């Protein structure tokens, strides 16, 4: 099959159905990149995550691209990481990634609102403690012991607040 633009050998085959009308496109790699159908050449050595993000933005638009770039301020998990391994990083991710999670949750549970048991207690500073604990883990990994000590103090204070 030849490229429909330049008649070179086609290496990209795209098939789309719009309102029941099926359209097939054959393109060579260069023309496909010009058309934005495939990811433009990226400099070597880029982490997989950013390649994937470019791919998502190219195909699904900026809105989803923005979601793909989103990162939880507490546990530092990105939406792309969640999509790659299927596990969220902390309770706050349900808020950070809400626009991506809700359709998924609706599909698997046929519902979006909890019915049933509720705990009596309510924790106010959960996200803040997760943010501090995640930062502490990174400080220890980086052998930044001064920062780690400060973070430990901050965690202790936050726990006191939680109890008061």
């Amino acid at each position: 099959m030849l490229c429909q633009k330049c008649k070179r050998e086609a290496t990209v085959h795209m098939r789309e159905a719009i309102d029941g009308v099926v359209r097939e496109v054959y393109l060579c790699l260069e023309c496909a990149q010009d058309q934005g159908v495939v990811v433009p050449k990226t400099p070597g050595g880029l982490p997989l995550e950013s390649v994937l993000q470019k791919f998502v933005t190219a195909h699904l638009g900026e809105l989803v691209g923005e979601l793909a770039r989103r990162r939880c301020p507490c546990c530092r998990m990105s939406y792309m990481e969640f999509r790659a391994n299927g596990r969220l990083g902390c309770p706050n991710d349900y808020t950070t990634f809400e626009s991506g999670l809700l359709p998924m949750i609706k599909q698997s549970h046929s519902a979006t609102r909890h019915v049933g048991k509720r705990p009596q207690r309510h924790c106010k500073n959960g996200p803040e403690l997760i943010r501090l604990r995640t930062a502490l883990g990174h400080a220890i990994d980086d052998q930044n012991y001064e920062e780690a000590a400060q973070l430990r103090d901050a965690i202790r204070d936050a726990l006191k607040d939680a109890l008061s």
Partner: protein
Amino acid sequence: MNLDDLTRTSGEWLRGSGPESDIVMCSRIRLARNIATYPFTNRASRGDKTEIEREVKAAIAKSGADLFYQDVHVLNPLDRQFLVERQLISRELMAAEGPRGVAIGPQENLSIMVNEEDHLRIQVMHSGLSLNEVWEQITLLDDRLEETLDYAFHSQMGYLTACPTNVGTGIRVGVMLHLPALVQTRDIEKVFRALQKINLAVRGLYGEGTQAFGDFYQISNQQTLGKSELEIIRTISDVIPQVIDYERRARKDLLENSRQGLHDRVSRAYGVLKTAHQISSEETMHLLSSVRMGINLGLIDDLEIPTVNELFIHTQPAHLQKIQGRHLEVDDRNLARAQYLRSRLSNGRHQSN
């Protein structure tokens, strides 16, 4: 209590009593819970996991529940496998890394896994069809733990879990059924399709992705959000009697239409188990399944159901090695298994341990 003590006993859920226990092995409910102030387990640092373990142990102590805590991190691979075979921990907890453990209740009715996919996986299991009793016990324990622990909860999404497939109630309600006749008549596929249509999952003896060894199947809910715990329990409670009824009808048909063939198959299975000199775990499960059905249909009268239930577990690889007190390779296990079965099944009427 320690792990070696467990090799001499078996869980209450194997005792073969309770409603419909000829077909229902046990009823089980688990709740997934997380502490609001820590990242989920997959994102938690080693230090976080240590703290989570400490907090959960303190909450258990305060709850007044009589539980024995086993640190899984320090266990050797054989002991971890032993806990999996006993249904006290999941394969995920066995294979995980870092601080983690399991709190085990008397008679093994109850266990709390710590630092599995979620910080807490609370499980209660009873023999026979008894979901209401299981729910009463587990919700009470959950309440007690919550008096000390701050659970991660969202007013709209409910209990927050590491995987969105468990969010909401965090509940999995499961019933383990022994369905040898439906397997034999090949009607089992029809039952599965009907269950899948109403969003129920069917799994093997050891949960997700495992084969249905010994014709045991777990039927459980998949959806955890949008319905209350009691509604989810009711859905399962309504459907199980229908499956039981199918299995009973299939057994009746087999008895009426091919009694001789069935009796022969059951007796041969029993004969092989009593006399073999080497036998694999898979063949053992397969033959025990025939024997179990044979007892329930009155075709074998010198063996008790609890003994058979126990043999399903005690002939698994790790159990066998714990009972023998030494490491055994596959060939040696097959010899030891056959010897163990001969000793348990010889000499007239048999009692469970």
